[in-house]
């Protein structure tokens, strides 16, 4: 069983490596979108391949996205500061996908709101993957039990 620190560590390594790669790939429009989708698949796999308990999944969400939720809040408390820049750089892996949608809500672009709530979205995504993984593993164990009974 992996520890929370190990899972969060892997998620940070994936996010930083993906951020660099996807930023460079924006030089080749189109490839950046493919890599952005690939990044999303990789974090989904990383999350679903661990066997953490319910509470530990919550800790993964908190340690992975909690600091960025604070940065997001700072960007609102100190407009014009570096906080929103930092938030945008951190979410570089999602930039190609966000750049595909361009419309304004009350004079502010859609991507701005998305970047602000991204820590919440990704935190909730951890919960969604947990729920899906739990259902899947419950299904597996039912099958395993049936096979064991048949023996």
């Amino acid at each position, binding site marked *: 069983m992996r520890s929370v620190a190990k899972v969060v560590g892997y998620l940070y390594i994936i996010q930083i490596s993906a951020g660099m790669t996807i*930023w460079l790939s*924006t*030089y*080749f*429009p189109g490839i950046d979108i493919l890599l952005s989708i690939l990044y999303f698949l990789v974090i989904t796999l990383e999350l679903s391949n661990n066997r953490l308990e319910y509470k530990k999944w919550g800790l993964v969400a908190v340690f992975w996205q909690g600091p960025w939720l604070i940065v997001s809040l700072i960007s609102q408390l*100190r*407009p*014009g*500061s*570096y906080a*929103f*820049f930092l938030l*945008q*750089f951190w979410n570089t892996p999602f*930039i*190609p996908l*966000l*750049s*595909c949608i*361009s*419309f*304004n809500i009350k*004079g*502010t*672009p*859609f*991507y*701005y709101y998305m970047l602000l709530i991204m820590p919440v979205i990704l935190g909730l995504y951890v919960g969604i993957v947990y729920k899906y993984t739990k259902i899947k593993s419950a299904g597996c164990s039912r099958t395993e039990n049936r096979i064991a009974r048949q023996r």
Partner: protein
Amino acid sequence: MFTGDVGYGKLEVFFTPISFEGLEPGDIILGGYPGCSYGRFSHAGIYMGDEKVIEAYVDLGITIQSIFHYWDYKEICLLKVNAEREKKEAAVEYLEDMIGRLFYPTAFKPGDRIWNCSKIIWKAYYQQGIDLDDSGDFWVSPDMFYNTTFTTVIREANS
């Protein structure tokens, strides 16, 4: 990569009044804060007439703003783009269709989804057959507009 201040990160307001007289739609306005990491000027906008500027910011994307906020910068420079009036107006029209597009500070030249304040101006003129970047770099910075042979300084101010 960056060793000084980047973009908007300054909360200081320098009052540098400069007259905007003589600007035509399509001309360029540069603003600079001291210690900027990527050159003398940290921001660029394109004049669209009626005291309005098309520019790009991290939190607003490509946007239309009042020209007077340039007085907040420590250094201001007004540049005349040496091109036919039709091309300059076409450059402004090109950008009017881009409002709300995504800003990313280190946007590369290729592509039309990811922008920064300098790339929008460079691309608007590139579409008209004018390359404002003499250096042929991977990306565009405000200083390139100051250094290109396609522009002439109308007026400069430093507080």
